């Protein structure tokens, strides 16, 4: 199977995209004329006859071959275990976790670890954080309950609920914001009375991977989407309203915020919108060519929920494609499209066939999120080193190239990952403590210094965390770092370093706690020499060493 990537590599500007897409489809048309039934049989039997695991590796390898590159070597166990902990649990492994995996000699230890991490409480916590941030942002908007939203996702991920059910619950949610935490997604999009415009834009982007918001005002300049499409989607969300309840404050007697809820409001018929020319138009509820009765007694959001899982022509449902793309990007740093939430004919995918098959199988597996994760993390590509060589240095999506996944791309740790990892490193001697919920509030307060909210109808925000001076200052000077490097009695450094034992062993402990690997012999020599300079203040030396390890690029970058 050709992937069309050799051609796509030449694409760069959006301006070129249209022409090139046409070029690809022309080529494909020609081929099917030449090879006739062969192509057809290949598409049905050929693709599905290999297992999905083989198919993923095959498709990725095809990309390497088409582009004349050679993949990097496989990641070492040290590299891989740190990566999988960060990606699945949102933190680095503890000293004990890292050691246990590296000492394990079983050939199946990677898949065994994946299973145990998927069953870990931190898996639930990590994906709860990610999806709560996706749905309501890092800065909780007014009249939204983060507690409620997190509770919803915590239960959803803990119970392994199918992704389509989670999404339908969110989209059709009604009620009290703590009793039914799913409503908080909608509440966060209803910050202004805007006829559900923001809710429409966010829902299509986040859950369907489609950016139709520009068509609110005009036809899309680059794709088939027309202005009516935005308003057709929007007409599904016109029966949503919210009520903000207040209550008297017993001490001051003034009215203060109580709870909020999402409620139904009557809405029938079409929505009206204005063309740029000033002409009024109507749009009826319609999803990918399927019409919904605009009359009385129809719950449009419920209808929307039913249509979500329908295939779109010969393609799997948008909701499956969108989740596959997001998950792939979560693990590789890049999805099949850039950005991950802008799929469509105007923005060709790097591996369209692979994405489609993953989405089809994800849907067929009842939208089992963990199954999707297994497929991705047990692939050949996920297990490659992040170090590249001459033969694949061109595979550099940071420079704008189409990702070919011939080596692992570096990912900057998210702020939450950094916080949790620093906590792990500083408590490295007390492995498996758990009890994250107590730290939830502290972590969120700490987070605020890196988030800027824009207070507009898109409710968007930006983090100033990755690779910035504020991040560097935090890493060098913050209380959190001071705590991590503390030599007070009971701290990791004090306990480990004041134990009897050779110096080399202590240095190895620090490397293992921070970087999940042993120092090389050269590194060990260098460090010992530096530590000698501290004379009797050896504990200070260990402290500075640990500080340096935690501040190093190897710690900060998920590799």
């Amino acid at each position: 199977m050709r992937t069309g990537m050799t051609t796509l590599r030449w694409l760069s500007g959006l301006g070129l995209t249209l022409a090139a897409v046409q070029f690809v489809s022309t080529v494909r048309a020609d081929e099917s004329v030449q090879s006739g039934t062969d192509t057809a049989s290949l598409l049905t039997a050929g693709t599905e006859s290999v297992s999905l695991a083989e198919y993923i590796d095959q498709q990725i390898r095809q990309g390497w071959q088409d582009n004349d590159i050679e993949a990097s070597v496989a990641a070492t166990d040290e590299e891989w275990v740190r990566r999988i902990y960060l990606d699945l649990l949102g933190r680095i492994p503890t000293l004990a976790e890292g050691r246990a995996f590296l000492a394990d000699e079983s050939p199946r230890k990677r898949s065994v670890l994946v299973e145990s991490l998927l069953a870990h409480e931190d898996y639930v916590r990590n994906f709860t954080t990610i999806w709560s941030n996706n749905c309501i942002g890092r800065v909780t908007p007014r009249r939204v309950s983060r507690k409620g939203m997190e509770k919803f996702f915590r239960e959803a991920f803990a119970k392994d609920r199918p992704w389509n059910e989670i999404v339908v619950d969110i989209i059709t949610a009604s009620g009290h914001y703590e009793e039914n935490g799913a409503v908080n997604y909608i509440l966060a999009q209803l910050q202004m009375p805007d006829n559900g415009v923001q809710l429409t834009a966010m829902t299509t982007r986040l859950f369907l991977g489609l950016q139709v918001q520009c068509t609110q005002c005009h036809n899309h300049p680059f794709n088939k989407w027309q202005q009516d499409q935005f308003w057709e989607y929007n007409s599904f969300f016109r029966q949503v309203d919210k009520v903000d309840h207040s209550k008297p404050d017993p001490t001051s007697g003034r009215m203060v915020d109580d709870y909020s809820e999402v409620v139904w409001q009557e809405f029938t018929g079409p929505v009206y919108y204005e063309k740029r020319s000033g002409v009024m138009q109507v749009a009826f509820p319609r999803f990918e060519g399927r019409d919904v009765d605009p009359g009385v007694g129809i719950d449009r959001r419920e209808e929307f929920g039913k249509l979500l899982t329908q295939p779109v022509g010969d393609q799997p449902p948008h909701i499956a494609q969108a989740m596959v793309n997001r998950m792939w990007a979560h693990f590789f740093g890049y999805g099949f499209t850039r950005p991950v939430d802008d799929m469509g004919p105007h923005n060709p995918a790097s591996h369209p066939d692979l994405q489609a098959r993953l989405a089809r199988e994800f849907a067929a597996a009842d939208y089992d999120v963990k199954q999707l994760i297994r497929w991705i993390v047990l692939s050949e590509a996920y297990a490659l080193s992040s170090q590249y060589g001459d033969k694949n240095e061109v595979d550099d999506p940071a420079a704008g190239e189409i990702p070919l996944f011939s080596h692992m791309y570096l990912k900057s740790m998210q702020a939450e990952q950094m916080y949790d990892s620093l906590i792990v490193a500083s408590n490295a001697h007390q492995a498996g403590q758990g009890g994250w919920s107590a730290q939830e509030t502290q972590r969120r307060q700490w987070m605020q210094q890196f988030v800027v909210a824009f207070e507009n109808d898109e409710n968007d925000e930006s983090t100033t965390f990755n690779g910035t001076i504020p991040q560097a200052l935090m890493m060098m000077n913050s209380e959190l770092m001071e705590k991590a490097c503390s030599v007070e009695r009971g701290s990791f450094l004090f306990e480990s370093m004041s134990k009897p034992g050779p110096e080399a062993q202590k240095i190895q402990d620090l490397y293992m706690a921070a970087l999940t690997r042993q120092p090389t012999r050269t590194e060990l020599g260098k460090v010992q020499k530096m530590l000698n300079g501290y004379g009797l203040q050896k504990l200070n030396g260990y402290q500075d060493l640990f500080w340096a390890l935690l501040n190093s690029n190897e710690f900060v970058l998920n590799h």
Partner: protein
Amino acid sequence: MALWNNYGMNRRHFMQHMATAAATVPAMNFLSHVQANADLVRSNQKSCILMWMGGGPPTIDIWDLKPESKNGGEFRPIDTSASGVQISEHMPETAKVFSDLSLVRSMSTREADHTRGRYYMQTSYVPNPTVVHPTFGSVVSYEIGKNRTALQIPAFVSIDGGAGQAGFLGMTHAPFVVDNTGRIRNEPTAAGKDRLEPRLTMLREIESGFMQSRRGELPKAHKDVYANAVNLMTSKQMAAFNVSQADASLGLEAESQATKDAYGTGGFGQGLLMARRLIQVGVPFVEVNMGGWDLHQGVFDTLKNQRLPLLDKGISAITADLKQRGMLDNTVLVWMGEFGRTPSINQNVGRDHWAASWSVMLGGGGLKNGQAIGATDKDGLQIADGSKAYLPGDIWATVAMAMGIPVNTVHTSKRGRPMKLANGGTPIQELIG
């Protein structure tokens, strides 16, 4: 209002105009005479202050009023010290200094979504999946920052901001984001400062291995950002962030209460005051953010009672202050948001997103100020016949020219594509003369 006289003014406006003339003697004295000379000596360095109006300001109610149209809304225009240029009646102080400011009233941009609009206005390029374009502050940091060898703090500071990216120019040119109190978080303690030297030595040794392994640009970028952070931590130029701190060697005074009041005590005013201090120490690009413009409802009340009084104070104070210090000709002022707002007023007495015809304000920088360039039609719905439509690239090309950055500069993206400065925009002829 039918009482127009031959000069296009009615009586009320005429009276206001007279009041303006009377106020030409500075109402506010921004500097002590002792300090004046020091500032003048330093002031040949070019800089730019971007006033970013997050949310999309209704320029039809601020800079380009349509009192005769059904779209005109509640506000009346008043005359300004720039002859023939009228602005909103709720901007009286700004009207007094308008001979040092200008308007481009025929902006026609294509993005009416916040994220895309912000990207387009700040980079001059529309979003593209394969490349991240640098915001203009990053371009200035790259082009001018490298020549300011005495500058120890970042060349691009964003006050209350955070969305701009340096893109292919690299993380060292990303905005340094602070809030309007100027408080820098996580500064080292005295004890921490003492430990810094041995720790950094250790860090250099430890991370060299990972850096030399081939893993892309991030490890090196990480090291560069640390170098900048260390510079910042140990620099006395940090005093510029703290409006209450004086440093005679830098020509910085502790700002008096009167000065703080003149700028306005809100975040925008205090941010502008900090911006002035930052350009005094040589920062070439400062962005000051003012939000709260996404006025889908209650536009007139919010403008009149909240936004415009703050905006008026801030703009008039920075203009007058820079002028008194002899810094205005070297400092380009730019005022813009991601788009304007609909000429038509919606059912919630609000205005929605509108990119087809709106205004941007410029000033200082040695430009030929006191003009309004371009025009919209009588209802504000489109660019008037015969008026040239401008793009963000034209604004930034004008700024580049005023700052001495060659307009034909071409940068190279990471995959080797040539990227023209300001997307090949052309400086606005009327402003550069």
